[in-house]
Structure formats: structure tokens, C-alpha cells
């Protein structure tokens, strides 16, 4: 397949996944804001959404103080914010439009409708009343995007690059969500409010559709260590790092070319370390440090994938 086509499909998938994860995070904060919270907690929660996306400085420059309404507007509708849902959905749509002939018509129509429907939204109306509904809609469109891809597309190279994009982005996003939220909850925990802590942890789980999974796997109280284990090491948990990296590795092996050996090896190494890792060892290092290192590795994989496959280089 054309390198450029692979590039567009890969980024289409990454932006769709990113839009979904932004919506998930905003949704969790929105739900938590319905619970009794101190002003510090509120600010902390919404600030964390910006932190996950590395947007604190850009946001403060534009809007100053962190308020739920301003953050939501910034993360949903702001056209100049490259991580806003608006920007992600537009980027996703423009990427698929550039290669619409390479995907099934159902995929293109689905992705195009997503954009057309989103663009038709009235921000004031959405922010005023049905913001939760909108987050759910974004999630549903992302589910639909995955479903129509798996359900209609020939499982060729094109398909592999889409999957590669989805799972690399998901690994990155889950790691960020876990990192930022974990730090936040730990901070709050010092105040010793057990009930609040419980809600924080369950909100984190819900943001990655992991609440029911946690109950099923552990049949016990929610503890930080187990939450981390579920989201990092459990390969049967669809949004965990282990699962995402397993998919990244598998899909990479299926598109391998003459120069991609090292990339494959690094992906395999990362996956294996998760596959056979122990949460105790991770906590010995410290979760934050561990996740920071992990994000460094996924960034490196992203660069290497671009180099090996996506950037049109003159190779024999």
C-alpha cells in the first residue's frame, strides 16, 4: 500500500481514539462534579484533564482560571486546541477523506456523518444542557467507527495500520489518564476522606469502562494497587496497557518490512515486559516514574513507525 495511505489511516484511527478518550475524561469529571466536592477538588479535577493532554500552559494563557465550564468549552469546541474533540474529529475526518477510496464506503460514510453531525451542534446549547449526552455520543461514534472497520474491512495492510493507530493511541491515553488521576487521588487521600477516595477510584475506572471489570476480576474493595494492575498489566482488559501493546505488537508483525525489525523488537519487548510484569515491581519504581518511562517508549514507537512505514523515504 502507499505510504501516504498508511499514514492517513493510522492518524485517522489515532484521532478517533483520542477524541473518545478526551470525551471519557471529561465525562468522568462531569459526573464527579455532581458529587459534593471542595473547590480545590473541583479545580484539581478539571486541571487534571488539561494536564493529561499537556495543555495547562496553553490554557492558562488563554483563559486564566480553571472553571468546569471553560475547560469543557476548551476541550470540546475550541478549534485552536489541537486536542479538542472538535480538532480530533476534524483531523480524523480529513485523514479519511484523503484516502476515502481505500476504506469501505460504510466506513467513510460513518466517519463523515460523525463530522457533519458534530459540526451541526450548537455549542451554547450543548454546554447549557446536554453535555453528558454529547460525551456519550462521541464514545458511541468511536465504537461505531471501530465496529464498522472490523465489520466491513478486508483484513489487509490498510486494516493493520488502522489497528496500529488505535492501539498505540489507546496505550498512550490510558497511561496518561492513570498517571494524572492517580497523582490527584493520592494527593486527596492524604486528607483521609475514604468515601471521596472511593468515588475517585470508581470514576477513574469508569472513565476506561473498567468498573464492572474490576468487580468481576477482584470481587473485592477498590484499592489503588489493583486499579493500577488492572489498567497496566491485565491483558484481558481491553483498554489496559498490556492489551494495547499486545495489539500494537501483533499488528506490527503483520505489516513488517525490511527496515522495521528494530521497531518490532522494541514493541515486542515492551509488550513482554507487561505480559510478565508484576505490579509490586512497578510500585517499587513508583507508578508515576513507571508511566513516564512507558510514555517515552510509546512515543519512540510512534516515531519509529513513522520512519519505517509512513514517511515516504527513498529506499530500495
Amino acid at each position, binding site marked *: 500500500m*502507499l505510504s501516504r495511505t498508511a499514514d492517513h489511516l493510522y492518524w485517522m484511527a489515532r484521532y478517533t481514539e483520542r477524541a473518545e478518550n478526551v470525551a471519557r475524561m471529561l465525562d468522568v469529571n462531569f459526573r464527579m462534579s455532581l458529587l459534593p466536592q471542595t473547590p480545590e477538588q473541583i479545580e484539581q479535577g478539571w486541571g487534571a484533564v488539561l494536564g493529561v493532554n499537556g495543555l495547562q500552559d496553553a490554557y492558562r494563557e488563554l483563559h486564566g482560571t480553571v472553571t468546569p465550564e471553560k475547560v469543557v468549552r476548551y476541550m470540546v469546541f475550541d478549534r485552536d486546541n489541537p486536542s479538542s474533540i472538535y480538532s480530533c474529529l476534524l483531523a480524523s475526518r480529513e485523514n479519511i477523506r484523503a484516502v476515502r477510496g481505500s476504506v469501505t464506503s460504510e466506513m467513510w460514510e460513518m466517519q463523515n456523518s460523525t463530522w457533519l453531525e458534530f459540526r451541526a451542534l450548537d455549542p451554547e446549547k450543548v454546554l447549557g444542557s446536554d453535555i453528558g449526552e454529547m460525551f456519550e455520543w462521541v464514545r458511541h461514534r468511536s465504537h461505531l467507527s471501530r465496529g464498522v472497520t472490523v465489520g466491513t474491512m478486508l483484513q489487509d495492510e490498510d486494516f493493520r495500520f488502522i489497528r496500529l493507530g488505535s492501539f498505540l493511541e489507546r496505550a498512550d491515553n490510558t497511561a496518561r489518564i492513570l498517571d494524572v488521576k492517580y497523582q490527584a487521588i493520592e494527593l486527596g487521600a492524604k486528607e483521609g476522606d475514604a468515601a471521596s477516595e472511593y468515588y475517585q477510584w470508581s470514576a477513574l475506572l469508569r472513565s476506561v469502562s473498567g468498573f464492572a471489570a474490576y468487580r468481576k476480576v477482584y470481587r473485592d474493595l477498590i484499592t489503588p494497587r489493583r486499579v493500577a494492575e488492572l489498567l497496566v498489566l491485565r491483558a484481558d482488559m481491553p483498554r489496559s496497557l498490556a492489551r494495547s501493546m499486545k495489539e500494537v505488537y501483533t499488528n506490527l508483525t503483520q505489516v513488517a518490512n525490511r527496515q522495521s525489525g528494530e521497531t518490532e523488537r522494541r514493541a515486542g519487548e515492551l509488550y513482554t515486559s507487561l505480559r510478565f510484569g508484576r505490579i509490586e515491581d512497578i510500585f517499587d519504581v513508583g507508578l508515576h516514574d513507571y508511566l513516564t518511562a512507558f510514555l517515552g517508549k510509546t512515543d519512540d514507537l510512534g516515531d519509529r513507525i513513522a520512519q519505517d512505514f509512513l514517511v515516504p*523515504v527513498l529506499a530500495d
Partner: protein
Amino acid sequence: MAGGFFNEMVDSDGVVRSHYARFAEWLQDTPSERVARKRAEADTLFHRVGITFAVYGEEEGTERLIPFDIVPRILPAAEWNALSAGLRQRVKTLNLFLHDIYHGQEILKAGRVPADHVLKNAQYRPEMQGLDVPNGIYAHVAGVDIVRAGQGEFYVLEDNLRVPSGVSYMLEDRKMMMRLFPELFARYSVAPVEHYPDMLLDSLLSISPKGVADPVVVVLTPGAYNSAYFEHAFLAQQMGVELVEGQDLFVRSDVVYMRTTQGPRRVDVIYRRVDDDFLDPLVFRKDSKLGVPGLLSAYRSGNVTLCNAIGTGVADDKSIYPYVPEMVRFYLGEEPLLNNVPTYMLRKPDDLKYVQAHLPELVVKEVHGSGGYGMLIGPASSKAQIEDFRKRIEAAPEKYIAQPTLSLSACPTFVESGVAPRHIDLRPFVLSGREINMVPGGLTRVALSEGSLVVNSSQGGGTKDTWVLEN
């Protein structure tokens, strides 16, 4: 519904023509709410499917629809048969002409076409002189614009031999009609058009460089922001070939390759939808980012076939157009089957004088213009517009031609006030490979404003499904 033009549906006595009778019945029997609902559905579908064109300068992520009208343009088999025979003759002639002027130039030597019209034309490409192209075919895809005037006679308005577009709308319009109104296709036996991409692929495969067993065909597009991008993507997908941009290709040792995730892959046939000027920055426009450096050299070496060939524009130029009937006689020894519109060449003093005296009745066009830009439609223009054009003509008469204003035929069309006749044209697509092929019909374009004669989509024109009836 008189008014000085040929009405496709109703004769001069107001009687519905026989080939429209069943449609007229259907329209009468169908509740208007249903029709309105279906028309809205068509809009939604076209948007969702993205059958749109990008308008330069508009915001990213927004494209416009080309309005689709649900009243089909119906042609009886006999009319189409006569028309298609004329199209074959004309396209065959134009390819012979191109071969001739890039080889022995017999027609110029015989004085049947003025040599300086050809050789000094900006569209004449000296790079093509003496080059042999597969099967001697230059214009593999031609989109010949046909209008009906007077009592319904067909005229050729323009031969588009460079990168004619619109065929995707022809195909999507049919799909849409069948989806919206399947019952109509039970009443009519309409000749299918859906096999066009297969025919196109077959033509492209037939012109691959000699000795290539399993040729790799690609469609070359200027990119997603080109107004006809939808069509490029559509045709590539329908033919199952790669859609490439210039940046995806490179030339090494006069061989063209595309950059793939598995390394370079050789390309044999390029259906290019990029104009000559932008194809190769080493030879043509240096600032072109759409082309492929070295492409012309690879082409001249016979390692890749371009479709259409370079330099076809010299045969569809408005200054050459008046000579096409003469070409038919010269190359085929036949009388032309299709009429040309009488054309005044303003470079000729007598013609200029006549045109200056009759501006308000005439259509004046720029010789090198297209897309309905840079033209004057005398009867529809204000005095000021006419005077403005007069000055432009006087400044550079050689840049213009003039033609009588044809009263184009009209077809009933849904407009705000109901159903009313609107002027139409027809663009059949003629494919030349081993043989000449076309699907019955073509793209019917309709000028949606009352009285307007400009059907171009860039000027607010719409399209209709075109039905050629089977006997």
C-alpha cells in the same frame, strides 16, 4: 410550454412526448409530499456519501453539493444511436489529428488547418513531436459537450480532451435515482451505465507500455483539496487501483515508482487528473508541487503511459474547434455526423467586424477559457457588461471567438416554484483504447436559474440522471 426552445418532455403542441409519457404519469400519481421527502433524502445522502465538490477558499471540512434534480433526462434509443455514431466519428478524428500534428503534420501541409493556429498554440507541446504513444491514441478519455437547439438538433459545443470530469456524477446520479425511485425503473427499460469503471480500467490496461504482463495502473490526483477530488477517489476505488498524489511517485532511471510501505513499486499506466502544466516541474511549471520530477522523460522513454497523453489540449482549443468538421473530411473522407456551432474567429477582420456589430445577440468566449468563466452571453447581459466586453475584445481580438446564442433545449426541473423547464446540456464520456467505447448517455447538467444557459457546477449548475432507453 413554448418559449423558443426545444422542450425535451413536451412538444410544441403541449403534448407529452411518448418517451416521457410514463414518467409524466408517475409524477402525476405520486403524492407531492413523497416527492419532496425523496428530494430531501437525496440531499442528505449526497452529503453523507460526500458526493461534493470543494470550493476554493472555503473553510476546511466544508464542501458543497452539486444540486441533483430528480426529473431524468430521457433519450430514446434512436436518438442516442445517432448521437453515439457522431461521437465515435468525432473522437476518432481528433485522435488522428493529434497523431498527425505530432508527427507528419499532413493536415497543416494541406492547408486545411492553419499551421500557426496549431504550432503557436500554448497547448501545442513540442515535447510530444515525433513521440509514438501506444495505439496512437492521445485522448483516451474525452468528454464531449453536446447541446440541442432549434428543433432538437444536436450540436457539439466543446471537445474536452484534457482531464474531463463529471463521470462520477453520472454514476452517482443513477445510483441515487434507483435508490429513491426504484418503481420508475420498472416502468422504463433504462440502459445501464454502472460498468463505466470496468470499461475505463480495460482501456487503461490496453495502453500499458509494451511487454508489461500485469500492468500497475494508478489514478493521479492533485489532492483532497481539488474540486474534483471526490471523482478521483471514486474512480480509483471503483477500478481497484491506487489513488496517488505527485509526492507518492518518483522517477529513477526513467522508470516511475510509487512509495509503498513495502518499498518502491513500479507504475505502468497513470490515469492523470492533473493538467499538463503541473505534471513535471523539470519541464513544465517549475513551481508545481502536484507533479513528479522526471515524469516526462520516463514517458518519452516509453516506460509509462499517461492517460490522457500530454498535449491533447491543442485539439480541444476553441480556436481549433471550428476546423473539426474539416478534419473529419480530411482524415476519414466522411461528412461529419455532428454539427458544429457556427463560430466567428475574432482574429479574422471580417468576423471581428460582424461580431462588433452584433454583440447583444452573440455568445463571446475566451479562446482558452473554461468553466463558464470569461464569457459574455449577449442577450442576457446589461449594456454596461456588453460595452465592457467590447473593450476587452478590441484590446485583444485574437483571444476571443463568438457564436450565435443557441436556444438550448430545456428539461422539466424541480425549482422553488414547482416544476419548470430549465436549460440542459449533455456530456457523454468517450473511451478510446483498443477500440472506442462509451456507456449510453452521459452527464446531463442543468442551469437552475430561469433562462440561464450556464450549466457549470462552479456557476451553480445542477445535474440530472440521463436515461437512454433500450428498445
